[in-house]
């Protein structure tokens, strides 16, 4: 049953041949594949780490830009508020000036109307006075003399005497 013969040499050679074939056919490709896979996983992880870092940096930049944009927007709003207030003040001032101007014009028209009314009234007073006086002194004074007297009298009057008519 136990007999050592030349088979032992043949088995050693057989096994060495098997190892050589396996090394070429299976071991090397698989070992290379395993190496490539581990390299790829390592590279992917490094890339993922790098991408994550880049994403964080980009996010940081975006946050910074957003903050700047907010600041600028706030400045624009502030500027717009100031401009609007200035325009508002200018419009109010213009309106006030317009009102003043209109008021002055109205006062001037009032003054002018009053003067005209005063002149008219003066004429009426003269006529009424003459009519009244004519009736009173119809007999001793002629009409021309009376007109002269009255006009002189009227001319002697001044505006201060009619101040209470204003």
């Amino acid at each position, binding site marked *: 049953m136990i007999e*050592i013969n*030349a088979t*032992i040499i043949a*088995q050693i050679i*057989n*096994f060495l041949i098997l190892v050589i074939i*396996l090394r070429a056919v299976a*071991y090397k490709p698989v070992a290379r594949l395993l190496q490539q896979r581990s390299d790829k996983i390592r590279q992917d992880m490094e890339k993922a780490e790098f991408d994550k870092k880049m994403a964080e940096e980009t996010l940081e930049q975006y946050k910074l830009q957003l903050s700047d944009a907010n600041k600028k927007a706030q400045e624009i709003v502030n500027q717009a508020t100031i401009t609007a207030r200035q325009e508002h003040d200018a419009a109010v001032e213009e309106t006030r000036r317009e009102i003043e101007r209109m008021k002055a014009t109205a006062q001037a028209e009032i003054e002018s109307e009053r003067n005209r009314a005063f002149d008219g009234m003066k004429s009426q007073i003269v006529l009424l006075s003459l009519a009244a006086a004519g009736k009173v002194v119809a007999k001793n004074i002629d009409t021309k003399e009376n007109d002269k007297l009255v006009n002189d009298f009227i001319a002697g009057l001044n505006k201060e005497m009619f101040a209470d008519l204003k």
Partner: protein
Amino acid sequence: MHEIGVRETVKFLGLTFNIETLEMTWLAMGIVILVACLATRNLKAVPEGWQNFVEMVIIWLHDQIDAMMGERGRMLAPFIVGLFMFLLTSNLIGLVPLMASPTNDLNTTLGLALLVVIIVHCLGLYFKGGHYIAHFFQPTPVFVIINFIEEIAKPITLAFRLFGNILAGEILIIVLLKLMPIWMPIPSVGWLMFSIFISCVQAVIFTMLSMAYLANAVKKDGAE
């Protein structure tokens, strides 16, 4: 069913060969190479089918090699992978009716064990030189006798352990099949299942012990 203990021999160039052992060895080699070819025919980054099995074996053996031998061990990885796959296939072949394990022949197991021991000593001398020879005389020169016996015992124990286990498994299968009627297959099937387990365990043991011996030769001093 082959006869236990009787081996067909052929004469070639005046040398005697156990032809059945050689045939079964070639069959085992063919199966191993076929599995390897099938597994690596269409390698994908995401493994499928047989590729999973071969990758699993190689990764497991790589881990063992790294743990036991250190960085120089990777050089021996194809040898270890081949040894494991060949032994596993050889051990399991014997469980198929009308076939015999190449490892139920002492010529195979002793051949492999001697090959391992020769590689151990060659690598030991190559990597460590004088230190390798000196370690046989440690701690005192008297120990050279014990160390010598140990070195002799290594291939013998390695070879006979595998040979005995596989041969016993096959003998018992044949005996059980002859003893038990065909309608009562439970003992035979039970033993067959146990033999599958033994076949795997013996392949692992032979490979692990070979790695342990090789580790002594290739591991850097102080790396232990």
